[in-house]
Each structure stands twice: as C-alpha cells, then as structure tokens.
C-alpha cells in the first residue's frame, strides 16, 4: 500500500475538495438564514458550464470565472425568488432547480457548441497554477500546498472571511438573528427577506466558483451532469460542519480526501465500481455521526400555535 498514500494524493485531495468546500460554504450561509438549499448541485453545474462558455468565448480565464459567478448569481436569484418571495417549499424548489440546471446546460451544450455529452477544446486554458514562494520550497508540505489554482487558495481565504463575517461583524450578527428567529428579527425592523436574498446570492457566487474550479481547475472541459452528486455531498458537509465555516471546511476535507482516494484506488486491482462508491459510502457513514434535527422538532416548528 506504499503507493497509496503519497504526496500527490494529498495534493489532489486539496484540489478535489475545493468545489465541495465552496458549495458547502454556500449551503452553510443559506442554512444560517433558514433555507435548506438542495439546489447546490444545480447551481454548481450552471457554474461549471458557464465557466467553460466564458472561457471559450473570451479566452480570458478571469473573465470566464467572473462570468460563471454572474450566471450562477442570476440562477440563485431564481431560488431566492421562489423560496423567499413566493414561499414555495425550499426542498422542492431545490430539486426543481437541479432539474432545470441539467436541462439548461445540456440544451445549451447543444445550442452553443453543437455537441452532445461533453465539450472540450484544446485552445482553452485552465486555471493557472500558482507556485507559492517560500512554501513551495518546504519539503513535502510544499508539494502538497503549492501549485494549485488560485481558486484553491481563494477558498481558504473565503472560509476565514466567512467565519469572521458571521461571528464578528454586525451584519453577520443580524444574519444569524434572521435565521434563528425570523419573527423576532422582523419585529426589530431587521429586513429578514433582504438578508435571506443576500445569503442566497452569496451562495450563488460561491457555487459559481465551485463550478469554475470543477470545469477549469483540473481538466478544462464540461461534461453533462459533471457535478455527479458533489452538490449533495456538499450539503452533507454543511450539515456535518453545523453550518460553521471552519467545521464545514473540516467536513469537506474529509470528503475531498475520499474522492481522491477513490481515484487513486483505481490504480490497484479493485474494480473501479467499488472505488467509485467510496465517497458516497463514506458520506453515509459520516452522516451516522451527525444527528439530524428530529422530526418532532421540525414538526413543532412547522405547526407553531400562531397561524
């Protein structure tokens, strides 16, 4: 098993964790304002596709990422409008948005690139790899931490930034308040739905980045449904991390590691089918340790005395 756990495994874990982490942070922000966002998967898919479109059309990687962020932002606005403004069931909206994302991206793949299944163009450049001075010269650690795309580093900054925002700033405090007791927050003149919209849009931006890392970070291509359930794994990371940015980062790291491990295991004599199952099995096992809100609590919330 010597060849199994080596430096490049950890390096690839860091790479694969990034999309999950970014989406999970988005999910965490939504959860903090009381919206359980099942639509992460779809938002990420939109991000992945639009990043490729931006890249293909402009050839500029920064513009491509910004374009992906913009498009996912718009897409998340739809989620916000449905669940906040029209008060539709959040879970159903999330599921529908996943359908819509799949439909839109496969359709656009045909309409824009005239291909089915996957799009790849040699002229497209992926996200540049950054060598971090000093760190890259540290033995082992340098190989793991250095040489990733800018989004990998950005995601680390976002974790810290969100942690600070939520627990140290006034706006973050009000966001928590809006999620904890919306009625009370409203009675104090806090604009709860505005905060919810803000959270959803932020989630959209994060999912856009997640998608961009997915389609531009490693291989520069888009395939139909390429998120392959990562959005749901991100959702589990959100729950495991108790919607706490640092906790979410920890949970995402676990899943990212499992994903790279499953790829690595394919080099061994195991059938790929089983190695591909690994991340999902581990996620289920991880859920075992996280107790969901009991149905009693949830039902109580849904059936409050006031009508």
């Amino acid at each position, binding site marked *: 098993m010597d060849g199994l756990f080596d430096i490049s495994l950890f390096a690839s874990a860091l790479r694969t964790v990034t999309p999950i982490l970014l989406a999970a942070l988005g999910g965490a922000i939504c959860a903090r304002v009381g919206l359980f966002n*099942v639509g992460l998967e779809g938002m990420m898919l939109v991000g992945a596709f639009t990043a490729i479109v931006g890249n293909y059309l402009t050839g500029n990687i920064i513009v491509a990422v910004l374009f992906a962020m913009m498009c996912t932002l718009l897409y998340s606005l*739809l989620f916000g409008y*449905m669940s906040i*403004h*029209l*008060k*539709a*069931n959040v*879970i*159903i*909206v999330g*599921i*529908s*948005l996943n*359908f*819509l994302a*799949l*439909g*839109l991206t*496969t*359709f656009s*793949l*045909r*309409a824009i690139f005239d291909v089915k299944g996957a799009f790849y163009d040699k002229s497209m450049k992926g996200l540049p790899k950054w060598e971090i001075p000093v760190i890259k010269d540290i033995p082992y650690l340098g190989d793991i931490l250095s040489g990733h795309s800018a989004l990998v580093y950005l995601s680390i900054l976002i974790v810290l930034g969100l942690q600070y925002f939520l627990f140290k700033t006034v706006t973050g405090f009000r966001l928590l308040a809006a999620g904890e007791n919306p009625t009370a927050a409203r009675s104090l003149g806090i604009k709860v739905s505005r905060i919810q919209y803000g959270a959803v849009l932020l989630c959209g931006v994060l999912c856009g980045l997640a998608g961009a890392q997915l389609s531009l970070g490693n291989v520069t291509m888009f395939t139909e449904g390429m998120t392959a*359930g990562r959005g*749901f*794994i991100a*959702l*589990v990371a959100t*729950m495991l991390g108790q919607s706490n940015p640092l906790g979410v980062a920890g949970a995402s790291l676990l899943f990212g590691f499992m994903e790279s491990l499953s790829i690595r295991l394919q080099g061994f004599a195991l*059938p790929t*089918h*089983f190695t*591909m*199952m690994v991340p*999902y*099995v581990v*996620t*289920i096992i991880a*859920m*075992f340790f*996280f*107790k*969901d*809100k*009991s*149905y*009693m609590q949830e*039902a*109580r919330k*849904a*059936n409050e005395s006031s009508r």
Partner: protein
Amino acid sequence: MDKVTTALRSLVQPLLAVIVGLAVGAIAIVIVGGSITETYAEMWRGAFGSFYFLTNTLTRATPIILIGLGVALAFRAGFFNMGSEGQMVLGALSAALTAIYMPGPGVVKMIAAIFAGVIAGGLWSAFAGWLDAKFRMNLLITTLLLNYIATYFAAYMVTYPFKDKTGSAAMSQTVMLGREAWLPKLFQGMTLHTGFLIAAVVTVLMFLFMKHTVKGYEIRMLGGNPLFASYGGIQRGKLMLASMFVSGGLAGLAGSIEVLGTQYRFIDGALTSPGYAWSGIMATLLAGSHPIGTAVAAILIAALQTGGMGMERNTDVPLEVSSIIQAVLILFVSAKLTYSFIKRKKAGAKNGRAL
C-alpha cells in the same frame, strides 16, 4: 362551493405551468433558430401522431407512472424519497437474474422475477427509512447517496460475475431472458406491453388506497402533521418503513417491468440514462402527489420526451428543449404561483381600504 374552488385552483396551477413551460420552450426554439409552430407540431406528432407513436409514448410512460406513484406515496407520508433510481436499478437487476436462473415454467419465472424486483427495490428503500427512523439520518440525502451505490453495484454485477459472455460486444449486460418469461405485448408489432396495464391498475389501486383505507388515512395524517399522527396513535417508525418499502417496491416494479417487457435483459445504464426515476419524481411534483394526477403527468412527461425525439428527427431543434420545458413546468408548479398571487392580491385590497 369549497370543493369546486379547490378543484379549480388545483387545475389552474398545472395549466399555467404548461403554458409557461411551452413559452420558455418556444424561446429556446427561437434561440436555436427553429420555427415554433413547426417544432411543436413535430413534437405533437412524435408523441401522439399515430397509433405507433402513441403506444410508444405509453411504453415510455409505464416505468415513469410506477416510479411516480411510489414517490407520491412517500411524499404523502412526508418523506422525500429521492432514491427511486437506485431502487429501480436493483429491482431490475434482481428481476433479470431471477428470470434467468429460476427454474420452472414461464409464468412462474415472470411472477417470481416481478416479486424479486419489488422486494429488492423495497428493501433498498426501507433501508434508508430505517436509517432515518433509527439514527435520524436525513432521508433525502441518504436516498440520493444510495442511488450511486446501487447503480455502481449493479454495474459491477453485470460487468464481472453475471456478464453476458456469449455476445461479441463488450457491453455490460446479462444474457437474454428466456422468451417464455417475457411480458406479452399488447398489440402486434408495437412496443406497448402488459406492463402498462399493471401500471394502470396500480394507479387506480393507489388512488383508492389513499382515499378510502385506514392505512391511507394514516399516511396522509403522518405527512400532514407527524405530531398529530403520533398523538392519535399512529406509529411513525412502522408506517415509515412500510411506506418506504412500498415506495421503493414500486420503483423496483418499474425496473422489473422494463426488463421483462422491453429490454429482456439487464443492461448497465439502460434504465438510468433515459432518466426514468427523475421523470417519475417530476410527475409526482407536477401532480402534487395525487395518484391519478401523477399517472397523467407521467404520460405528459413521456410525451414530451418521445415528442422531443420526433422533433429532433425531423427538425434541427435539439431534443434538450423538452428537458427545459419539463424543468420549467416543475418550477412553476412548485412555486405555488397562483396561491401566493391570490394572497397578495387580497392583501393589496386590504391595504387599499385601510388607506
């Protein structure tokens, strides 16, 4: 009075959704440079244009109806069962293997295969229910994750131990079932098979079950307010396991019927790539979990898909337009559009008087 308005209101929403869905589809058609009327005409022809196309649509609708009914049952009980895909695949695999290896006359094989499919799908689904009831693991997520595990497992089974080695191709599939275990076709030369009748019967049974039986009543109350149900003496855990079993069992039945009636073997990916499971969930959402509505919605969705294929054959508009229409349909139905619209109008009127 009450009944009429609720009936009307429940009609307004899907109708509006269909209109909006077609409108968005029209935009997509224009984007790719097609003619709206011509495209939609081709779509109609592809779905219902001839007896052949009609039966083709119904064949496609068959697994969607069954899956949709299963999901609807779980939704009614308050559980988001998103695991139909895995349940269907395991059901289909079990049915195929049973039909291949079970000795005896054709009818016995057929019935045993269907039973095996139902049980496999049901158990896989009940497993998720058990995880929720026992360990409070979020059912929506576990069922989703179990899909991946089930499909990879089934793929492994037909790539290694049960692979058809007689064929020349490197396809991952089982050997062909004996002809005697096939579900008979309804019409000579058409794809439609007896599975459709089974789906129709199950639809009616489900409707009667939900409306007129004690268990159906208990399921509805559990979905409405679980605290009320437990206060009234309904045991959530047991009912959850049972309804998840039936829900997954129906997905398993859908898989078995596909194997016995259409494909005659288990082929890796043949059930997942047409997206039957997700279409079934869509049908349920569209119909608000009403059994007969779900069946109608399933046929509508199947028509959109077969119509889309017809459209792609005869125009330059790609098939994916249908998936956009489908998604928009769901989105609008789920948004309780008319409901909040009415509410807002009322609120507006009230403010108007007050000022």
